[in-house]
C-alpha cells in the first residue's frame, strides 16, 4: 500500500539526485520538505519548486552526522507521507584506508545516519497512517570490492537495514523501497570516467523512484542492466572475484 498523496521529506536535498527527486514529486502536486545541512541556502530551491509546480515547499535543517532522529521528527509540523534519504558521501578510499576517523565519517554518512533517521520515520508511520520509506543505497553495497569498500560496506549496511525494515513492516501500511542507482552523472561522480550506457541522469533516478512508488516496487535498479551486472558480480566465486581489477 503506497501513499498516493501527502508530503515528501527529502534528506540530502542539496544533491543533484535530491533536487531531481524533489522536482519529480512536486510535479505530482505533493508538498515538499527539503532537508540538508545549511538548509537556509536551499530557500531558493524551495521557492523554485513552489513557482514551477504550485506546491508548498520548505526547508528544514538536518545533518545526518549529528541529528537526533526522535527530536528531528518530533520538531516537524507533521509526519510526512514519504521520507527519502539520498544522503551519500563517497569519500576517498585511500584516505579512508589510512585514517579511521575519515572512514567513520563515510560510514556514518552512508549508513548510520540515514538508517537511524529512516528507522525512526518508519516507527512513527506505523503508529500513524502509514507511509513510504525510500532509501537510496548503491550497487557498490552488493559486494565489497577493493576500489571502494568503505563506501560500499556502508551502503551494504543501509541495504540490509532497509531489507530488515521491509521484512518487519511487511503486510502493514509502511512501504519500504531500496534504490540502487548504478552510475549517475552527479557532483559525487564528477571527474570519474563513467561508461555512457551504464550512467543514468539524476532525473532518470527520480522518475524511477516516483514510478516505482506508484507501482509498489520494492528494490529498484534504475537502469535494469545493473540488476544483471550485480547478479553476476554477486555470484562470482571468491577465487575468481579476487583476481578482478575492480
Amino acid at each position, binding site marked *: 500500500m503506497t501513499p498516493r498523496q501527502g508530503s515528501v521529506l527529502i534528506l540530502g536535498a542539496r544533491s543533484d539526485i535530491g533536487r531531481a527527486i524533489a522536482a519529480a514529486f512536486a510535479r505530482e502536486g505533493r508538498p515538499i520538505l527539503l532537508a540538508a545541512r545549511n538548509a537556509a541556502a536551499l530557500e531558493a530551491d524551495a*521557492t*523554485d519548486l513552489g513557482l*514551477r*509546480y504550485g506546491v508548498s515547499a520548505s526547508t528544514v535543517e538536518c545533518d545526518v552526522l549529528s541529528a537526533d532522529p526522535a527530536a528531528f521528527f518530533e520538531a516537524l509540523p507533521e509526519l510526512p507521507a514519504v521520507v527519502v534519504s539520498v544522503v551519500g558521501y563517497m569519500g576517498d578510499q585511500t584516505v579512508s584506508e589510512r585514517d579511521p576517523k575519515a572512514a567513520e565519517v563515510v560510514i556514518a554518512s552512508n549508513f548510520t545516519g540515514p538508517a537511524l533517521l529512516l528507522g525512526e520515520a518508519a516507527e512513527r508511520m506505523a503508529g500513524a497512517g502509514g507511509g513510504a520509506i525510500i532509501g537510496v543505497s548503491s550497487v557498490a553495497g552488493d559486494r565489497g570490492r577493493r576500489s571502494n569498500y568503505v563506501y560500499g560496506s556502508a551502503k551494504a549496511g543501509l541495504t540490509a537495514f532497509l531489507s530488515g525494515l521491509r521484512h518487519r513492516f511487511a503486510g502493514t501500511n509502511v512501504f519500504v523501497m531500496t534504490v540502487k542507482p548504478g552510475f549517475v552523472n552527479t*557532483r559525487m561522480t*564528477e571527474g570519474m570516467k563513467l561508461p555512457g550506457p551504464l550512467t543514468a541522469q539524476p532525473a532518470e533516478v527520480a522518475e524511477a523512484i516516483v514510478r516505482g512508488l506508484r507501482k509498489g516496487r520494492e528494490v529498484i535498479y534504475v537502469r535494469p542492466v545493473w540488476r544483471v551486472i550485480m547478479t553476476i558480480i554477486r555470484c562470482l566465486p571468491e577465487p575468481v572475484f579476487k583476481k578482478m581489477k575492480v
Partner: protein
Amino acid sequence: MKLSGWGRFPQADCEVFRPGDEAAVRARVLSGATVIARGAGRAYGDAALNPEATLLSDRLDRILAFDPKTGVMIAEAGVMLSDIVELWTPRGWFPPVTPGTRFVTLGGMVASDVHGKNHHAHGAFSRHVEWLDLMLADGSVVRCSPAKDAELFWATCGGMGLTGFILRLAFRMTPIESPWIRQTTFRAESLAETLHLFEAHQASTYSVSWIDCLARGARQGRSLVYLGEHATAAEAPGRAPPKPRPRRLPVDLPGIALNPLSVSLFNELYYRRGKPGVAFTPIEPYFYPLDSILDWNRAYGARGFMQHQGVIPKPAASAALKTMLSLISAHGVCSPLAVLKLLGPEAGPLSFPMEGYTLAVDFPVSEASLVLMRELDAVVVDHGGRIYLTKDARTARSSLTGYRLDAFAEVRDRVDPDRRFRSLQSERLGL
C-alpha cells in the same frame, strides 16, 4: 569532454565544469584559466567552446520569482525556456521572444540576443529584459540594465558570453488568452511575392516563411509564408491542445540522405502541401517545428552541418537575395530547411538583427559548402548586412563589418582587459 555546437562542427575537447552556485562560478573565473559559459549548446558553431574551461549553467536553474500582476520573472540563467513554455503557457503567459527552438537557456537567449517570428514588431529578447546580474573577470558581480551600466548591458546582449558570466536576470513575459495560435498561411510563387507578403503584413504579430532555396528561374524564392497571432479566448478551440510528443532520431543518417535530388523532391512536396488559409495550431508546431524530433541534427550524419544566416538591409534585400538563392541552387547541396524573415532594427554593438531580411540555410560540412558560404558572406557584407554569430562556425573577421566592433572592444577593455572570457569563436574572429 568532447563538445560541439548544434551543427556538431567543429568539435573540441574541453574541460567542463558545472558550478552549482555563485561561489563556484567565481572559483572558476578566478582560477587562472580562460573560461566561457555554455547553456544548452544550441549555438551552431564554436561560440560555447573553450578547451581550458567551459562552464555549464545547468545547475543554475532556479526560478527565483514571478509576479502574476506584471508578468516579470526573475530566474537563474540556466533555466530552460522549454520549462517556462511548458509550465506558464497554461497559466496565460508566454515568453516575449522565442527563438526557433525552446531547448535553450535564458542566459543563452541573452548572449545571442535571440530574435523570434515577432522581431519586426517586438524586437529581440534584450528589449524585454529588465536587468541582468553579470559576474566579471575579476569575480565581482554587477547588475546592469538599460538604465544602469547601459553600455555593459547592451554589450552583454548579443555579446556571446564575452563580457562575463550571466548569473540571473529579470524579464517580462507576455500575457496570452489561449494556448492556440491563429495561423494564416500563404503560398508565394516567387521571391517578389514572398517579400511583398512580408511588407503587406507587418501588422501581424508573428511572421516567418519557409523558402525553397533550390527553386530556379521564375520560381526562385517561392515560399510558404506563415503569419500568426495568439488566439483570443473567444476564437480559440475549446479543447486543450495535444501535448507534444517529441521523437528521437535513433541514428546518424548517412551522408547521401540529403542530396540535390532528395532535397528538391522534398521541397516540391512541401511547397505543394502548404495549405493557404487560416487554421488554429498549438504552440509547439507553430514555434518549434523542428523540436518535434529531439536530435534532428543527426539528420546530417556524423560529420555535421553548418548554417549560414545573414541579414540584408531592406533596400538591397531583393537583389542580394536573388544572388544568394542563385548561388545556393547552383551549388545544389543544401537542406530543405531554409527560412526567410523580415526583421526590425537592433541597437547593441553585437546584436544581429537589422531592418531587413534574414535568410538561414543549412549545409553539410564539406569543402564545397565552405566555399559557398564564403561567397554568401561576401554578398551579405557587400550589401551592408551582418552574419549571425550564434549560427556561425567558420566566418572570418572581415565579414563582421556590420557590427560595432570598436564599441564592443571598449566595453571588453573595461571589464575584461585580459580577455579571461573567450571562446574558440572569439579567438577565430579576434573579438
